């Protein structure tokens, strides 16, 4: 377990190092980018849809996980009742 954790942490450090370099070099020069041509309405709709999708996926995941846990809990309580008193 410890070696797995070490591997995960070291991989993350190596992966994040280039981002630190980018941060140190400062912000990009925006003047070299060309004039905007994408529709603002499409970007607006896309942004709100993505945000809703992200929150919805999280809610569905929590609800499904909770249903599974509740089923397991009921099963365990029945088993405990069946084995008798005196835990």
């Amino acid at each position, binding site marked *: *377990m*410890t070696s*797995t*954790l070490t591997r*995960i*942490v070291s991989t*993350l450090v190596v*992966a*994040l190092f280039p*981002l*630190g370099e*980018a*941060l140190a*070099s*400062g*912000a*990009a020069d*925006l003047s070299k*980018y*060309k*004039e*905007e041509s*994408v529709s*603002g*309405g499409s*970007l*607006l709709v*896309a*942004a*709100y849809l*993505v*945000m809703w999708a*992200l*929150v919805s996926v*999280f*809610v569905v995941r*929590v609800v499904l*996980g*909770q249903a599974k*846990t*509740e089923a*397991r*809990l009921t099963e*365990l*309580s029945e*088993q*405990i*009742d069946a*084995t008798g008193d005196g*835990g």
Partner: protein
Amino acid sequence: MTQTLSADTRVPIRVPKTLIIWIIISALLVQASLLWIALKTPADVNLGIVQKIFYFHVGSAFAMMLGLTAASVMSLIDLIRPSDSADALARSFLEVGVVFAFCVLTSGPLWARKSWGMYWTWEPRLTLVLLVTLLAVAVLILRMLAKDSTIGRRVGAAMAVMGAPASYLIHFAVKWWGGNHPQVIQGGGIQNSEMRVAFWLAVVAILSSAAVLVATRYRAIRLQQRTQALALRLSARVLRRQRAPMETS
């Protein structure tokens, strides 16, 4: 409202009434906020309609910052004085913080595409948000892989604590290091009154929804913890019963 499993293992299965009311209020706030943004707020003079991303983008950023900072604080408490409830709260805050971090990281670039002409630039605030999100995701992956291991829980908590200074830096990044990111709150505020109402309505709606998500996730994690405790208790009882005949003979 409470289904009792045994005398010492009371687990509330059904969602409490207060939480249901809170969910309804949050949903109404979000609907009201969306309607206000769509119908009442004017389009920005320079950016046009795309500026309306701003309301939920900034609200999500607030939820992300609060979520990740609260996760760091609860992780620190769990490190100093370990308890299942502190761990459950830390995980709930972290997960919800990550959800809103992804909202920020997707809505921001879509807005930037129109206002800056590109989706991404390695300016201080954006880079820090990405770093903090990656750190938080790393903690979640670590906790997922480590399952119930105590060392996994402690390493995860330590990593979450490290996210706190980075979250603090996100807030001051534009002020200290410049960059392209606009400063709306520190930079004079919103002048138009309808835009100001839309902004604060969106912030309240998102923070209320984030709190509901944290409460729901906290309940789910506590339920999991109690299920594990119950499973352990059952295993111990079965083992004792198997040993009993051997001890008498």
